[in-house]
């Protein structure tokens, strides 16, 4: 039982023969007599074989070609989307200038329209005062068209 416990603690090292020779001999002798430990050792020996298989795993056919194609397309994509001067600086700058110009034109037209309106109402006020001073009937001034500059 003592050796069973000891072998359980060192089974990996035992199958890899990574133990002092005295210990290896002791375990060899024990495994020949103990069926349970012999089964465990067999399991771990199969693990070593599986680990050997894992070492020899190979990439699938044409993996190299697929990788090269993938790299090429990814690098091309990155290059086409990385025009920092136009994409990051020039484009936003042009948009800002455009918006600013549109706003200025809007303000200019708007202010001019306000001037026209105020001039129009001034003219109307003068006509009204003249009409009332001279007692001109209202229907006679209805068709007056006010010209502005």
């Amino acid at each position, binding site marked *: 039982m003592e050796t069973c416990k000891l072998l359980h603690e060192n089974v990996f090292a035992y199958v890899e023969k990574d133990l002092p020779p005295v210990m290896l001999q002791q375990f060899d002798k024990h495994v020949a007599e103990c069926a349970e430990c012999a*089964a465990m050792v067999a399991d771990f020996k*199969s693990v070593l074989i599986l*680990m050997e298989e894992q*070492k020899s795993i190979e990439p*699938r056919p044409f*993996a190299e070609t697929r990788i090269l194609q993938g790299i090429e397309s*990814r*690098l091309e994509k990155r290059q086409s989307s990385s025009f920092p001067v136009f994409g990051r600086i020039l484009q936003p700058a042009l948009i800002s200038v455009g918006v600013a110009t549109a706003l200025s034109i809007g303000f200019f037209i708007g202010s001019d329209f306000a001037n026209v309106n105020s001039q129009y109402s001034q003219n109307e006020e003068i006509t009204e005062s003249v009409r009332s001073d001279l007692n001109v009937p209202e229907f006679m001034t209805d068709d007056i068209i006010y010209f502005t500059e």
Partner: protein
Amino acid sequence: MTDQELITGILNNDKTVIQFLVSKYHKQVIKTAFHLLQNMDDAEDLAQDVCVEIIESAGSFKGASSLSTWIYRLTVNKSLNFIRKNKRKQLVHQFESFFRKGDNSIETRVTEPSEYDKTFENNERRQILEKAVNSLPENQKTAFILSKYEELSYREITEIMNLSLPSVESLLQRAKQNLQKKLIVQFSEYSNKK
């Protein structure tokens, strides 16, 4: 071609050098990524990522370690990030591969019964080993794979994992002990099921 010549060629965007780089290192990258990710599709995708990273950051390679070590480091880091980000996706793959292995065993039924038993048992054992290795803590798993599957020296592992020699030795010792414990439990459960 020396490491420095390779790096210079990459920096000059020399396509022949890039082809040489992929031809020389794709096996190493795919194998390491496959051992860490347990999925060949993901390993190939990751190999592309690693190659693009090499091309884009070749300028940062100072030559303190060999190019191979640097590529191992990139592969391990990218694989571990992938595992962290895709834990859910990995569960689905394991589930799929479990059923795919089931299908394979059905196909092998046409062979001799003893051979079928052997294949089936090998598949079961392989799954037990994969599960045990995957359940190791990240650092132990990485050190174990680099040492046992990639057969790298302790010195190389210290450079790849950026750890001291005693740390790597202790990591590998703990990885073996943990794996041993897990395998004993799993194998006894498996033989009880049989």
